């Protein structure tokens, strides 16, 4: 297939993934807004699980199936996995940026009008505001620029073709010219998303939703999402990993790679967080590079640093660090906004005046730590930028594991993947625990 055909197919796939993710996310958000207490906490945990599961784990777990599946079956499986992985984004957007028209208002409209169903549906869509379109655009960009799953499953996408072209010897400008159509499409959607986000006035989150006890539908939906995108991949690792775990006890190259990944993530996350705080006016432009996707961004950064003027910085950690920060900026900006929108300003001011660390931790520190952990995880699990930009002598852990995954599954690889997945979670948990202890020491 030509690149144009593959790109057109990618656009169709992106649109259908966005529609599916929005529908599923809207349903989950509607159910979640009616829960409270422990059920809500558990629901949040399940909702975030797909986002926290690296693409490599998912693609590795399903690779035997992808090998045997016919092309149409593989395409359908890819579509389903993308929808289930990206639906949480739609749900989170709906929860934090609800539609201006409440459910009561929608019901009143339904009572007050005798319009046909399709007219009522059109009204509801209009009344939902631009948020679904903005979020749908973001999901489209993520699905359209996806590379890791497609690469390991031997799917034909424009990102795989671009990667092939670049490693096949085409200069970057030639590779980009080859991929002009999909890049233009990506740019157009990105511009629309940024424009819409810039002009959007956000409605206040609903506070008067009547909690209901029924949570079955919610947990069935969340269960399906988690089962397919997190639980099954982990289960595929745990059983064979038990046999190969003894090899992890031997200090070796795996732990070196792990330390490299942790180092880069630990640097990139706070830098992106700090930059996101400073660039309010330029937020739209600074997040644009990250929304181009890891592959395109990495190729651009590579070419910039191969230029004569920056050559001295080429074989250093700087290109990879810069790429990771740029990739994290969109997420960091979003998390900054979410943390700020939920900040109890008066209580925080009082806590600062009192100098109570425990209160400050509960009011502000926890949220900031959660946001930093999310950024850390996003940078740690990166494969594409790391494989292209890592300096010589340094191999981030998921780059090595991605290479090994191409050899097929075995016990040692499963153990290493599981270790690479669990170890940073432990590191984050330890850090959070230490911060809590520090805060509580000064409790008054």
């Amino acid at each position, binding site marked *: 297939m030509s690149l144009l055909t593959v790109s057109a197919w990618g656009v169709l796939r992106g649109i259908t993934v966005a529609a599916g993710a929005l529908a599923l996310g809207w349903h989950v958000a509607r159910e979640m807004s009616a829960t409270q207490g422990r059920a809500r906490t558990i629901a949040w945990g399940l909702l975030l699980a797909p986002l926290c599961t690296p693409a490599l784990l998912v693609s590795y777990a399903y690779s035997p199936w992808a090998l045997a599946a016919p092309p149409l079956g593989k395409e359908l499986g890819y579509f389903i996995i993308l929808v289930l992985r990206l639906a949480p984004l739609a749900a989170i957007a709906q929860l934090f940026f609800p539609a201006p028209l409440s459910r009561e208002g929608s019901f009143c409209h339904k009572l007050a009008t005798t319009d046909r169903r399709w007219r009522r549906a059109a009204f509801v869509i209009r009344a939902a505001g631009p948020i679904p379109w903005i979020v749908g655009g973001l999901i489209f960009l993520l699905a359209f620029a996806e590379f890791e799953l497609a690469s390991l499953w031997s799917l034909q996408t424009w990102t795989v073709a671009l990667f092939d072209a670049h490693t096949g*010897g085409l200069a970057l400008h030639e590779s980009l010219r080859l991929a002009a159509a999909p890049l233009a499409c990506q740019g157009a959607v990105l511009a629309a998303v940024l424009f819409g986000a810039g002009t959007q006035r956000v409605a206040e989150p609903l506070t008067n939703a009547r909690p209901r006890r029924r949570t079955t539908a919610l947990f069935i939906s969340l269960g399906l999402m988690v089962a397919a995108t997190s639980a099954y991949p982990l289960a595929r690792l745990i059983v064979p990993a038990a046999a190969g775990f003894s090899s992890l006890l031997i200090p070796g190259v795996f732990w070196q790679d792990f330390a490299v990944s942790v180092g880069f993530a630990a640097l990139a996350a706070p830098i992106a967080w700090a930059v996101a705080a400073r660039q309010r006016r330029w937020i739209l432009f600074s997040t644009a590079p990250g929304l181009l996707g890891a592959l395109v961004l990495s190729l651009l950064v590579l070419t910039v640093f191969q230029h004569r003027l920056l050559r001295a910085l*080429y074989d250093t950690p700087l290109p990879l660090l810069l790429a990771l920060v740029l990739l994290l900026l969109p997420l960091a900006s979003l998390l900054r906004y979410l943390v700020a929108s939920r900040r109890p300003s008066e209580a925080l001011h009082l806590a600062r005046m009192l100098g109570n660390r425990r209160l400050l931790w509960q009011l502000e520190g926890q949220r900031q730590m959660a946001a930093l952990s999310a950024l850390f995880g996003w940078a740690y699990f990166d494969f594409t930028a790391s494989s292209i930009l890592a300096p010589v*002598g340094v191999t981030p852990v998921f780059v090595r594991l991605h290479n090994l995954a191409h050899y097929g599954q075995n016990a040692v690889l499963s153990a290493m993947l599981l270790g690479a997945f669990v170890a940073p979670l432990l590191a984050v948990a330890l850090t959070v625990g230490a911060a809590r202890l520090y805060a509580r020491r000064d409790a008054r």
Partner: protein
Amino acid sequence: MRLRRVPFLSSPLLSSAPFAVKSCVFNCIVSAQDVSDSRVSSIRQLLIVAIGVATALALVAGWRAWRRDDLVVYCAHDAIFAEEILRAFEKQSGLRLGVRYDTEATKSLGLVELLVREASEPRADVFWNNEALGTIDLARRGLLEPYQGAGFARIPGKFKDERGSWVGFAGRLRVIIRAARHPAAAERALPPALPAEISRWAIAKPLYGTTLTHYAAWWRELGCDPLIAWHREWRARGGRELNGNAAVKDAVAQGVCDFGFTDSDDFFAAHDDHAAVAMEPARLASGRTICIPNTVAITRAARHGAAARQLVDFLLSAETELALARSKSRQIPLGPMSENDLPVEVRELRAWAAESAPMAELAEARTECLAWLKSEYLR
């Protein structure tokens, strides 16, 4: 905006002034404080940025100083096998290596093209390729430094460049992996023939690695038009094209396909996993096999020439070839070696490798074939 105490505000002169005057003065002071505060804030931000940039530059300088003496190796060979050899060299020589591996998806081609891009200011000192034709291409572009050291003499002529720009060692065979229930075939000359049940056959994407070498061998033997027709017919009739030789091995091992073109080390990976598979050498129409050596070369203007030569000699030594022969990949020693030292499987492979086509013959065909493949896949 922070209001600081301004003694002037409580002076008797101002206290007796009309309210409008007091208000105006107050506004001026507040504005001045605003400007002062924003100036302080800007200076603080500039300082933070300056410190950040200085720290980054210091880290970069420190990194470069720390790694300045590293012998830089670009290695396309599989990391799980190459790592052990390179660590042994580090231990023996006391030198520190900085190794860059390639991704399994693109194998050697990515590193070859990277070396071409970096030609004006090479970063690598040594290139350890897992096939020959990419290295030959680099030699033809004048990007390699000839060296005829201790290891050069022990390798036969058909596996090395006569000037020493590159030298082969520890080869692999192109094989047909088959489900064990299918019998061995005395002849399975493909192409230009196509098998009856082509959907049960698999091959890796021919843009890269040893499959590209295989295509180059076919290109030279058959000519471009028959191969192009065969390739298109293969794809049109449902022949599987997968993302690498390991994927081909998995497809046959899992019963998705019955036959596949892959490398001998991939076959042994399936064999060691107790998959019901067997293999036979992939022969050209002339009956010759395709033995693809690893190749090692020193880049032109390498920064650590002496250390590079040391590594090349180490890789070409009998000890290294023996280590690779005894590893799970069962690589075929190309230099002289006692058969008794070799695993049984490797002895059989060695006999087949003796019938292989010289790699240097395929260089021209590789260039033409790759140009066609790029037009076929990258459009």
